[in-house]
C-alpha cells in the first residue's frame, strides 16, 4: 500500500498539491505514481514564470522504460521548480512528498479546494 499524506490534495493524474500559503502551492507526484513509473532517470521541469493550465502537460518524467507527461493540477503561474532533481532524479522515487517536490505555482485557493482529498484519491486508485 502506497503512502498518502492526509494533509495533501490530489489529482486523478497522480499529482499531489500542498498549500504553502494562500494562493501558493507546491506540486509533486504521488507514491503510487512513482511506483508505476519505476526508477526515474530524468525530469523535464516547467520554467518559473510560465503560465500553465490545469490538466495540461507542463513537463515530462522519464524512467528507464517509460516517459510520462507531467500535468499541472491547477491553472496559474509557475513560481519555482526543483532544479536539484536534475542531479537527483531518484528523489522522486525515494521521497516523493518531500525532497521530490517538482514545482511551485500561484493559483486560486478555490481551485485547490476542488481537488481530491486523500480518501477520494485512494478510491480513484481502487477503481
Amino acid at each position: 500500500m502506497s503512502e498518502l499524506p492526509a494533509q495533501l490534495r490530489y489529482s486523478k493524474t497522480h499529482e499531489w498539491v500542498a498549500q504553502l500559503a494562500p494562493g501558493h502551492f507546491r506540486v509533486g507526484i504521488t507514491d503510487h505514481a512513482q511506483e508505476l513509473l519505476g526508477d526515474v532517470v530524468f525530469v523535464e521541469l516547467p520554467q518559473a514564470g510560465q503560465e500553465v493550465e490545469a490538466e495540461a502537460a507542463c513537463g515530462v518524467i522519464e524512467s528507464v522504460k517509460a516517459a510520462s507527461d507531467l500535468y499541472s493540477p491547477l491553472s496559474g503561474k509557475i513560481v519555482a521548480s526543483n532544479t536539484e532533481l536534475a542531479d537527483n532524479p531518484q528523489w522522486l522515487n525515494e521521497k516523493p512528498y518531500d525532497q521530490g517536490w517538482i514545482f511551485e505555482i500561484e493559483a486560486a485557493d478555490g481551485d485547490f479546494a476542488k481537488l481530491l482529498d486523500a480518501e477520494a484519491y485512494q478510491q480513484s486508485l481502487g477503481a
Partner: protein
Amino acid sequence: MPYIPHDAAETAAMLEAIGANRLEDLFDEIPAALQTDVLSVPEGCSEASLRRAMEERAAEQRSLRCFAGAGAYAHHIPAIVWEIAQRGEFYSAYTPYQAEASQGTLQLLYEFQSFMTRLTAMEISNASLYDGASALAEACLMALRLRPKAREILVPEGLWPHWRRVLDSLLPMQGIHLRVLPQDPRTGRLSLPEEDFSDAAALIIPQINRFGLLEEVDELALWAEARDLLRIAVVNPVALALLKAPGDWGGQGADIVVGEGQPLGVPLAGGGPYFGFFTCKRAYVRQLPGRLVAKTVDAAGKTAYCLTLQAREQHIRRAGATSNICTNQGLLVTAATIHLATLGADGLRAAALRSHQQALRLRSVLADLPGVELPYPGPVFNEFVLRLPQPASRVRDALLEKGILAGVPLLDLDAAGPAHDLLVATTELNEEEDLDAYVAALAAILGGA
C-alpha cells in the same frame, strides 16, 4: 526443402499435436478469397547454380581504377575488418535490447561512440543512422526541436546536391523551410550575406563542399554564433584525421556534427548500405535521434553496457519520439569500429595524408594538359574540380573504355550544373601507375579532340 529442417514424420507429429490435418489448415482463418500464389517468381534452384548465375552477373561490373567520390570513397579496408565483422556472433545477432546477452555488441558500440566523439571533438555520439544525408535531415529536425519557434534551416549551395535532395524530401513535410545561401561563383566557397535570419534555427556548414573545397569554418561558425544560430557541421571522417574538428570551430564549436561513415571500412557496394554518424553537445542528448549505449554496472558491480535513454525512441515514446528510426546500420558500425581500431590514429592520418597528396599530384599534372582548367583556386582535401574542353560526361565515358572511372560530372550531381566540370577524387588506393594511366588516357582523348 532448403533451410527448413522438418522431415515428414516430424511435420505429421506436430500437426497432430496442434489438431490440424494439413499445413494448409493453419491458414483456415484467412478468407479463402484472399489465398493465392506468386507465379512470376521463378522455380527455386540449387546453391551451385545460383552461384554460377550470380557470378556471371557480378562479372558484368568490371574492375575500374576509381577516381569517383562525391561523398563515397574507395579507401583500403584491412583484411581483418570484415573477417571479424562477419563472425556469426556479430553478423547474426539482434539489436542489443537484452543487455546481458549482447555485451559484445554493446561494448563495441560504446567504443564506436568514443571514436566518433574524439574524431569530431564532441561529447555525445549515437550508434548510427541510415547514411550521411538522412543523418543531416535528422540533425535539422533536432535543431528545430531545440529552437521550436524557428521555421528555417540555412543550407549552403555548397552542400552535396544529392544530400540537399534528401533534405528537400524530408523537411518540408514538417513545415520546415530550407533557405539557400549561395556560393561565391568566383571562389566556389560560401559567401556570407547580411540579411535577416531571425526565423532560422541553424546553419549547415559542410567542411569540404560540393567542389571539393575547404571552407573557412571558423568564420562561418562565428557568423552563426553572432546570430544565435545552431551550427550543424557536415564532415568526412577520414579528412578529420587532418582537419580541425568541428567541436573546435569558431568560439563555441559546432552543436551537431553529421557525416557519411562509408569511408571508414564500408565497401562502396553501389551505394549502400553505408551509415550516418551523428554527434552533438551533451546538453542536447535528450533530443538525440537513434540508439545510445552507456557504460554501467551489473548486479554484482561489474562493468557492463546497455542501451540508454530509450524513452526518446519510437518503441517507447511512439508519436512523441525524437525519430522514427528503429533498425539502423549496426553491422556497418561494427566494421567501422574495427576499421578505426586497426588503422589507429597513425593509420588513419596516413590514409588521409596519402589521399590528399595524390589529389595534389594529379591536379597539378592534369592542369598542364591543353584546354584543362582548374576553376577554383582554394585548398582541397582529396577532391577537386577539373574544367574540361569537352562535356565532362563524354570524357568520363571515353575514359571508362580504358578501365578508368575518371570522376563524377557535376551535371550528374545537379541537372543545373556546369557541363564541362568533372569532380575528381583520389584515395590512398590510387597509386602512381593509376595516376599515370589517368593522365595518359585524358591526354590522348583531349589531344585527339
